[in-house]
């Protein structure tokens, strides 16, 4: 690593997670636009006088400067460019879900500028949801489709993108009225018989997911099954905590 890379100035990013470190410091896991995910020590951030502590919250657009070792650098300056996305209630838990996915699936120091844009866009959509309709099912639909789209882009960015436009056996384009089996890590193949290792999907659902249109209830439902299976493959055995919490919230309300 060259000297110039040791000092990074005013990098746009979001705190994904923070945890206490020593007596007065914090370790931040940050998702930055040009440097990807990185861990930073915020020295003295937990003291009463620190201006940093309130800024170190997730979902707040930040400009970060740091220097030092690549695996655990020291935060040297922190500023916020706008106020935090005003997320509350279930939407806040959903935003935490995005953070947990990024924490679990992104390799440190791997830049993903496009995914960063998708992340900001997803937060923007989540914040706007309460105004899209008063009926809970409208909000719930918006929430689900926002999460599925982010999952799709995340898989694509980390190199496990789903094939949604052609059948991998013949190379023929997906037919909206056809039935397909999505074999993970291979792609959709025509057929309707239940294969235990594949997810059964309609052609229209695959096409809907491909063009970010999950408005059909069947498409939303099948996409959820597909994404869950695809993510499970890369997440390993450890469960997603935020998913469990969201499920408990759904059960409670």
């Amino acid at each position, binding site marked *: 690593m060259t000297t110039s890379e040791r000092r990074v100035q005013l990098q746009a990013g979001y705190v994904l997670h923070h*945890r206490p470190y020593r007596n007065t410091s914090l370790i931040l896991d940050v998702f930055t636009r040009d440097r990807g995910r990185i861990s930073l020590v915020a020295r003295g951030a937990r003291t009463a006088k620190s201006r940093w502590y*309130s800024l170190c919250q997730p*979902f707040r657009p930040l400009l970060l400067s740091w220097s030092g070792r690549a695996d655990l650098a020291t935060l040297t300056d922190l500023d916020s460019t706008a*106020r935090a996305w005003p997320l509350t209630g279930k939407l*806040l*838990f959903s935003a*935490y879900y995005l953070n947990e996915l990024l924490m679990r699936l992104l390799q440190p120091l791997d830049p993903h500028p496009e995914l960063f844009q998708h992340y900001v866009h997803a937060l923007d959509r989540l914040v706007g949801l309460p105004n899209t309709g008063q009926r809970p099912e409208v909000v719930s639909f918006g929430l689900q489709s926002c999460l599925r789209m982010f999952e799709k882009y995340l898989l694509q960015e980390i190199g496990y993108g789903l094939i949604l436009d052609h059948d991998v056996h013949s190379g023929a384009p997906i037919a909206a009225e056809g039935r397909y089996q999505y074999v993970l890590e291979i792609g959709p193949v025509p057929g309707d018989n239940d294969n235990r290792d594949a997810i059964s999907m309609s052609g229209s659902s695959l096409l809907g997911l491909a063009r970010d249109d999950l408005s059909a209830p069947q498409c939303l439902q099948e996409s959820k099954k597909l994404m869950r299976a695809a993510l499970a493959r890369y997440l390993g055995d450890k469960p997603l*905590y935020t998913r469990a919490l969201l499920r*408990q919230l759904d059960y*409670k309300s």
Partner: protein
Amino acid sequence: MTALSPLVGRLMQALRCLPGVGPRSAQRMAFHLLEKDRKGAQLLVDVLSEALEKVQRCTQCRTLSETPACPICSNSRRDRSLLCIVETPADIQAIEQTADYNGLYFVLMGRLSPLDGIGPREIGLDALTHRLRTESVREVILATNPTLEGEATAHYISELMHQAGIRVTRLAHGIPMGGELEFVDSSTLSHALNGRREM
């Protein structure tokens, strides 16, 4: 270079379990206790071992207490229909100092932290629901910290309370007394604006 006798070294090592105590302070403390204040050291030993033996969680509010019910929970003059939910025992101290609150407490001993796997069970929400089922509580005051995790915790508990049909309130966010607007951060100020009151 080990000029110290092993026992002194062990004492210094043991003192380092305290927060904020590094090798240097541990050495100072050990020498102070052994050289200058042997009485104080004896007192520390006695109180520490007694406390370790007797202090447990209060069965009602989960704060630290040497009796099954802590002094606040067993005080018959406190309003039993008010329940204030806080993150740590230190928060109880802070609220008690205001002398404005006469209800009971429930200590979560943490907060929901989705990414660390700290869920409802870890912060004792089973015990809380059980308590609400057996006692008649009129109002629950959510006094978790105004951090995102504190907000997430407050939201989760408020869902539980709505289900049980109990009134839930949340501590207001605002400008500190004696503060100046110029130096208040923007999110506090926007909370204060949203929560403004008729005069």
